[in-house]
């Protein structure tokens, strides 16, 4: 009974695959089943964005002593659908002198990495699209691609302010990648593998947040900067004075940028839960429930921060990354390596 509740997605997949293998070739079955899982993941990310946007508007509303949307559907649940319909019906404006194809492609290049990260996040034992043995490296590499999309958007808008905003955003993302990578190295050293599944398994007895508190803090802060959330949301605030990189975008193209932002938000919360909070472990509750609880706890902290803190100035932001976080992250790596080496000497392997 217990096994069924915990593992029903895996059982379902195996069951369907087994049944289909009866009359189809095995490779075709694999392809079909994987395609189904991918479709599921895409749906899941879309639904997650809906939930996240709803959560954000309600939670930030409550932080601000007001209700948040509560007219469209019960508790404002259909608000995002209403907003999407509105966005879809807007006129599609493309800057006349801009670079057309780059303009069209930029939102897609920004959304794709956000979607691709979900491929290596374990929702439970065996519930992962693909257990790459370089899972974390894949995640970090993919998230760098967002920068390209942003630069494309800034360039194609044919607007010097957009370009300035895009370059600033690119500088921010690139700068904060380094502390993010360094903070994860500590986790990788302890787990002994880059695979997300192996990292979750390595937290069987104790979550890495206990062993790597500094790493967790650095990862969390760097991840907020990667996702362009407050207090690092210069990119959006840019619109106050200098037009941000997505100003020339209207309707659904604009929606794609914000889709990307919320997918990124959930992705970094899920990553944080996987790398530091133990992923889908431990007992009592089904694994996927744990996973969602932990991810949404981190999402809540992200929203809480958004509703409370002001924005950093550009040079303060860069100063924080290069002068504070990178030295701390390096120190963390050295300390972790030294700690592991000491542990091995004292207690064997």
């Amino acid at each position, binding site marked *: 009974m217990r096994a069924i509740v915990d593992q029903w997605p895996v059982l379902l997949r195996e069951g369907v695959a087994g049944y289909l293998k009866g009359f189809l070739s095995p490779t075709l079955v694999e392809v079909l089943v994987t395609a189904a899982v991918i479709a599921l993941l895409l749906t899941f990310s879309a639904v997650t964005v809906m939930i996240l946007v709803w959560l954000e508007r309600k939670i930030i509303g409550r932080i*601000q002593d007001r209700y948040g949307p509560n007219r469209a559907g019960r508790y404002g649940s259909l608000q995002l659908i209403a907003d999407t319909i509105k966005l879809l019906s807007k006129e599609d404006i493309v800057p006349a002198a801009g670079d057309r194809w780059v303009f069209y492609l930029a939102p897609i290049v920004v959304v794709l990495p956000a979607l691709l990260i979900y491929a290596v996040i374990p929702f439970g034992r065996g519930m992962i699209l693909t257990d790459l043995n370089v899972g974390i490296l894949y995640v970090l590499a993919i998230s760098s691609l967002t920068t390209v999309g942003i630069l494309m958007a800034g360039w194609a808008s044919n607007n010097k302010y957009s370009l300035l905003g895009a370059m600033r955003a690119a500088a921010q993302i690139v700068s904060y990648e380094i502390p993010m990578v360094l903070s994860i190295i500590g986790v990788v050293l302890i787990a002994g593998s880059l695979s997300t599944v192996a990292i979750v398994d390595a937290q069987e007895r104790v979550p890495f947040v206990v062993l790597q508190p500094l790493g967790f803090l650095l990862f969390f802060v760097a991840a907020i900067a990667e996702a362009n959330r*407050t207090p690092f949301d210069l990119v959006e605030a840019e619109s106050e*004075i200098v037009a941000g990189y997505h100003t020339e975008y209207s309707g659904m193209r604009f929606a794609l940028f914000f889709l990307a932002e919320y997918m990124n938000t959930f992705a970094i919360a899920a990553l944080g839960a996987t790398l530091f909070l133990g992923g889908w472990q431990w007992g009592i509750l089904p694994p996927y429930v744990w996973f969602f609880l932990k991810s949404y706890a981190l999402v809540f902290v992200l929203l809480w921060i958004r509703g*409370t803190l*002001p*924005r*950093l*100035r550009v*040079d303060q932001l860069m100063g924080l990354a290069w002068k504070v976080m990178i030295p701390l992250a390096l120190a963390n790596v050295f300390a972790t390596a030294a700690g592991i080496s000491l542990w091995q000497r004292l207690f064997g392997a």
Partner: protein
Amino acid sequence: MEVAPESPTLESKTDRVTVNLGPQHPSTHGVFRLVLTLEGETVVDADAVVGYLHRGTEKLAEEGTYQQNVAYTDRLDYLSGMLNNFAYTLAVEKVDGMQIPERAEYLRVIAGEMSRIASHMVFVGTFAADLGTYFTPLMYTFREREAILDLLEMLCGARLTFSYYRVGGVAADAPPGWVDRCKALMERLPAKIDEYEALLTENEIVLARTKGVGILEPGTAVSYGVTGPTLRASGVRYDVRRAKPYSIYPTLDFEIPTATTGDCFDRYMVRVREMRQSVRIVQQALERMPKGDFAIALPRNYRVRPGAAYASVESSRGELGFYIVSDGRIAPYRCFIRAPSFINLGVLRQMTVGWKVADAVAILGSLDIVMGEVDR
């Protein structure tokens, strides 16, 4: 107009970009246009363009009777409406040599100080919003501002453009129960101000964005004619309520908050402390308010004695003064308005040049200008 020279140390010629802030500004200060010349991230020139809200108030005042003109003055510093009325009626009464009943004086001071608190709440909220806090402090301060505005609505029927004062007193007496409600609100306010301070005053990011930013030297401030919390944040203890006392202020016990550095943070702190002092003033005035008339009954189209006088009050933005010249007709011959926001704006360029773009927004916010006053 001199502009900072191109940086000589850069080899490649840096482009100077001209950026236009406003007049439709997502930040809060009304229809204000600031033309910034940027070299990379740094502001090298800041040119303020005003006049988008000019309505010819001073000229219109020459057409309306003295009592009618009170309504024009509401629209000057519309965030603290009562204090504009105060300055105008004070000037007219000074020209005429009128003495108004004591109860009216108390009602004026209470309404004026409550208006000041409300205005500073707008400042705290919008300043925090300028820094990027996504409106959370704004929602909190506006919650208390609503409480104050509800009380003022009970008093005179309006929430923004009060027209409560009249030449000779005020328009109406406080309704029954109003004084007790006011006292109850004043009891609650200090705790709420603590709440705003808890969120902002020791916040690392707020400190990083405002400490040392946009420093105004006291000498510069005085030579530009800056008044109000901006001046006091630079260390100059000039407050019209103490320097040129009027109404019942000499009998009230309150402090003039000042600061030492004159950066954005000091301008914020001075206003927060002024809110607390205003609460003190209102509490004292509510205690001591005597019974009596709320105004002198003046005939319709009252002709003010010929003469000229200047009277000023400490408005939430600085020294708001009116110079009224009367020639015995039913309308003033001339009504000149010394608008503190307009004069304070003169120092904006000094303060902004050399800082980054994001700082320009913070500095403008910390000056706390209202376009109604700047443009008249």
